[in-house]
């Protein structure tokens, strides 16, 4: 009745690909955070679609934990970012060059 498994999976693959482009291409740290969130959401979508298709609850719990951890991750990431701002005035990754990298 609802959307098929294949539709969901293709959509999640697209989301994953877009997130991947973002993480590679963007210069702004926050934009990279956002792209990583997109990739995590793509994985969540796939997990939940599989969980629905298999009719088991484990997928739901994994998604729940991933959401929690992702929120925590954003918190820590922003803390690092804020700490960095005391030293410099840019969030552009190309200018974070104290280390040779």
């Amino acid at each position, binding site marked *: *009745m*609802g*959307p098929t498994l294949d*539709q*969901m999976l*293709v959509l999640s*693959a*697209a*989301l*994953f*690909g*877009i*997130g*991947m*482009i*973002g993480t*590679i*291409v963007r*210069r*702004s740290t*926050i*934009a990279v*955070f*956002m*792209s990583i969130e*997109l990739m995590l*959401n793509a994985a*969540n*979508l*796939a997990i*939940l*679609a*599989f*969980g*629905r298709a298999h*009719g088991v609850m484990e997928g*739901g*719990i994994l*998604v*729940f*934990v991933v*959401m*929690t*951890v992702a*929120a*925590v991750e*954003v*918190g*820590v990431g*922003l*803390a*690092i*970012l*804020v*700490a960095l*701002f005391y030293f410099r005035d*840019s*969030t*552009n990754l*190309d200018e974070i060059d104290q280390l040779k990298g």
Partner: protein
Amino acid sequence: MDEILAKSAQSSAPALWVGAAFAVSFGLVVAGSLGAALLKNLLHAVLFLALALLGVAGLFLMLSSTFLFVVQILVYVGGVVILLIFGVMLTSKMAQPDIPPRNRQTLAAALLALLLFCATAYVLTTHPWMVSAEPPAVPVAEIGVGLLQKYVLPFEIVSVVLLVAMVGAIVLARREPESK
């Protein structure tokens, strides 16, 4: 509440409505994620991210996962997006408009991601998933029981992770007085 949502997402709703809802969610996800990943203005990008996350929430509902639909909206749209907006605001004075928002690898990255998408989509759609036709939706209660029974150990560990992140974030972001 639960049953109503599940029902409306499932068989009792006319196929047309379900199709339309899926189309809307699909559009939200694709447009939102493209905007979030590529828009130059960070504030706009965050708002597009919120759209994409809402779209994902809609898809969760269509997968008859009412609980995760709510969590997605509370945690992501309500929490993460707000946090990101804070981040953008805090750092807005550092944004330099004259710098292109993307680095030089754009084309290569786009090709790589396109390749990845095609490979993943191909594999995902051709793999013979051994799934049953239409299993009944998993009730919320089962997730609650699962969290406190089978997944009780991870459930406890998540709390330690939250504590570590909280302490760590405070230590990291705290500004030290200059004279010390």
